[in-house]
């Protein structure tokens, strides 16, 4: 048994929104779906086996018929996770639920086939949403988390320690740039190296055999992010962001792509 999903809208984590009325309100506020000519509640139960590993979808909270073009929006989830899809919900599933003959299936398998993002938990309480195609970048980000634990003189050479805000600014830059290239140039760039920089700053280094780009995210938010890139020979660029135009995006994309 599976959902007849036609179009993926946007996955969203919502706490304690399994109440159909709360979901309806969320649709109004979150998606501008302010008119519903059909709403169906089919709460059939909750189960919580391993979070994110094999939990079963036991609840179909509501089905909306919106005026925004997509015919139906289905809400699936349990108390802590709610995912939204446009398209037609499998009526057969609803019928079975209505009659109480629920067939369990592995939500994780379904979700991993259809999900376009994953969540990365960093610095204990910061959840970052990353496209699945950029998983390697997520891995590099996670691996660089140790930087925020480095205190003054961490290297016995007098270097300054790092603030979590600086590191978060750096990974935000990496993700913004990677996602921008993915969505605008349809290219997946290779993950950068994330290094400790001077004076509490963070260095981000993209390097290939043909091109390299070093960005420096300063500790002081009022200072600009500076960059330098070259092809090891003649072609080079340097400046500060947001002077993005100085970075020859096309060149970098073609070289950094995997």
């Amino acid at each position, binding site marked *: 048994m599976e959902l007849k999903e036609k179009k993926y809208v946007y996955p969203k984590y919502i706490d304690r929104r399994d109440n159909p009325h709360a979901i309806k309100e969320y649709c109004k506020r979150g998606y501008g779906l302010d008119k519903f000519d059909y709403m169906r509640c089919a709460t059939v139960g909750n189960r919580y086996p391993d979070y994110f590993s094999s939990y079963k979808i036991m609840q179909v909270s509501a089905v909306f018929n919106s005026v925004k073009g997509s015919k139906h929006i289905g809400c699936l989830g349990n108390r802590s996770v709610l995912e939204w899809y446009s398209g037609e919900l499998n009526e057969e599933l609803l019928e079975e639920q209505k009659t109480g003959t629920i067939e369990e299936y592995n939500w994780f398998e379904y979700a991993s086939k259809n999900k376009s993002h994953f969540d990365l938990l960093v610095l204990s309480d910061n959840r970052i949403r990353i496209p699945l195609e950029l998983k390697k970048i997520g891995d590099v980000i996670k691996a660089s988390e140790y930087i925020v634990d480095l205190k003054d003189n961490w290297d016995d050479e007098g270097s300054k320690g790092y603030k979590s805000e600086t590191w978060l600014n750096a990974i935000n830059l990496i993700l913004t740039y990677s996602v921008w290239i993915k969505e605008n140039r349809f290219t997946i760039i290779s993950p950068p190296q994330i*290094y*400790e920089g001077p004076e509490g700053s963070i260095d981000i280094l993209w390097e290939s055999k043909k091109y390299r780009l*070093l960005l420096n995210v*300063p500790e002081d938010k009022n*200072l600009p992010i500076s960059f330098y890139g070259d092809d*090891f020979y003649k072609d080079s660029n*340097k400046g500060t962001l947001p002077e993005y135009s100085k970075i020859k995006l096309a060149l970098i994309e073609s070289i950094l792509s995997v």
Partner: protein
Amino acid sequence: MWPQENIPITHCLYKRIPKDHIDLSLSKPKPIAYKDEELSCDWCEYSNAKQTRDRVIQYNRDPNSYFVVRMLVNDIKQKTPVLEVKHQPEPENRSHTHVNGDKKKAIDGVEIRMKLRDMSHWVIPPPSV
């Protein structure tokens, strides 16, 4: 005191790099290794790589936690002309040399650190991972 001398461009400088400033997975120095405004190096005329590394003993540090790269003076002058290579002998180290220039300066600093890293070649390399 040792006299200050001009360093020929055909000579090289040894730079000691602490383990924490090396990406061991790539066996390359991190750009932060070149952050100092007065980057201390040793002139090959009066020092070899091992001596450069072992000088950390005087600071009560373990020399095995340090590795050494070599940079050609000509490369420094050609590729980073804003930097100045200046022999700065010390009583206990005649080879001591500074590569002067603001490597923390926003734009130029990024470029300089990148280029110095690029022109560095291991003489005492870190163990490969």
